[in-house]
């Protein structure tokens, strides 16, 4: 069964990046997804911070380039998603 964290994570990714759940993959990045501009980037950060109640460091924010990176950062904060 899908964990609650997994569900929230997928919901944020899908809603902010306009993807279907089955389209999520690690390689989607700022470079290959047109809608992922700087405003979208901040929206992603803000949604993740609010949903999982943590603060991302400046380095974290800059390091996030792909969906894979988001998973890594979440893992760093003890939130494991696949």
């Amino acid at each position: 069964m899908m964990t609650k964290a997994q569900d929230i994570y997928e919901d944020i990714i899908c809603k902010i990046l306009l993807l279907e759940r089955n389209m999520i993959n690690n390689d989607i990045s700022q470079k290959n997804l047109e809608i992922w501009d700087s405003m979208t980037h901040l929206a992603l950060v803000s949604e993740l911070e609010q949903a999982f109640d943590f603060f991302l460091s400046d380095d974290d924010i800059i390091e996030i380039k792909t969906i894979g990176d988001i998973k890594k950062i979440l893992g760093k904060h003890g939130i494991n998603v696949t």
Partner: protein
Amino acid sequence: MNSRIDVFHEQNDLLELVRKEPTHRNYWNVYKRIKQLDFSTMEIPPSQGINIALMSSFTIDPLAIYLDIYCRLEGLFPEIYIAPFNRFQEEIINEQSGLYQSQPDIVILFIEVESLLEDMFRVKFPQTNIKDKQTELDRIIQNLIQLLTLLNQRSESLILFSNFVLPTFSPFGILDNKQEIGFKRFYQLLNTRLEKSFRNNKQVFIFDLNEVASSYGKDRYMNYSMNYRGSLLFKDSFLPHVSYELMGYIKALKSKNRKCVVLDLDGTLWGGIIGEDELDGIKLNVTYPGNEFVDFQRSLLSLNNRGIILAVNSKNNLDDALEVFQKHPFMLIKEKNLAAYRINWNDKVQNLIELSKEINIGLDSFVFLDDNPIERERIRTSLPDVHVVELPASPTLFRQALEKMNDFNTLSLTREDLNRGKMYYARRKRQVLEQQVQSIEEFIKSLNIVAKIKFADDLVLPRITSLLNRTNQFNLTTRRYTEAEIHQMFSNSERYLIYTLEVLDKYGHEGTVGVAIVKINSVETYLIDSFLMSCRVIGRKIETTFLYKIIKDVQKKKVENLEAEYIPTKKNSLVKDFYPKHGFKLVEKRNDGYMRWVFHPLESKIIYPEYIQVVEE
């Protein structure tokens, strides 16, 4: 396949997501996906289009998400222009800027005072003397007045300038208000002086952001981390509150405002059931229980006194209910406050339709207040144009629910607004008389009608604009003009004659109820560009008197042709035959129902009702 209908349905399906679950990421998602829809095949009527320009000293883009969707939920199709970040001065000064190119109907400015101050202002403030503080105040206000005045001159749009949020911090701490100009007072003075500078300006409005932030909570409206990261000043959760308040202006601008509150009685205006609990048993009192209903009535009456019509739609025996209005010591709303009522055992849908006919306003002007969720559902599903308020379960929250509504706004307040509550009562009395008197002519004669017809003066221009934009039924061409356009016509008297009609009768003064705009096309040919009357005075032959006066004037000027048009809309079939009835001859008829008529004042005559006294000024 009809692509117009398709894109509309697609939008509606998307909006369903925020209707059901209004979270920020849903708004984001729906906004972005609607942006991807192709509206180019859809012809958006001017009444549903709106161009909005947002300008700010910080990143305002996320506000557009809510404004856009709120507009769409109201049936509007917005185009939002977002000026480049912190470039509002250049945008206003440069006539070629994106701002002017976007041809906004409304310009909204959010400027942080910090962007107008030097960086060290907060640092130096405790050491700054009173004279320097005043100089700084003057400088900022002058700068803003100049900027807004320039924008006002260059654009016909409505301008909303957001005021400054009073800080909760002061370097003086608890001693702030011991200073002649403390830190908070400095902001307050800016706001007061801004308001004062534009109090008499009909296009520039000061948007009370300070109030919106207070109401939401000053400790949480700002997003500090996102503000440092990307100049995103407002928290996502604050944006709906700002947008909701902005919609008050947008609804007023687009005539989406509501004019009449239709009230249920048992459980809504008083507690209990009059038919069972009787006069001394219902809850209506100066102390609890019952004081919550008295207080709710006070708020309703305050709206009534500014021009919002009240009506009743209730399932009761008429006599039982009227007894409360007439005899209950704490019943504040009286019969004279009601424009009309339906107190019977009929279906409330039918009653509402009848009320709409009797009061002569569309269902889209109604707000329906009823404590019974089943009645609300019945109205909501049968009459979607009526705004059904989801009243809280407890009557102690009714007042708050009413006061939170943003549907009653108009962009100016006219004398007619202030008297409207009384005027409808006078009208109801007239209708009673109408039923007693037999012939309609006799009845009209008995009203001792005086029609005052004169050329517009500048005091009446707001009322003219309001009539032009709100009159649907007795309106020959339904041309909507902004106040700025009316101003232009008014100052171009060689090209336009603007007539106004005021009506008095033995029950009172109806105020300015008619407007006609006559366009001078040439020495021989004049055209009636607009001719309209408020539905309150229809059916008393006043329209003939009004037209007669125009014909008489053009006769005097030896004008050969007086042309007139009928442009059909969904609501104005009432006046389809207005011109032929008065001897105008058809010269053109198009497939869409448009008709053009001509009258030759030098050859033809018009019969007018002599029992209406005409006063010309």
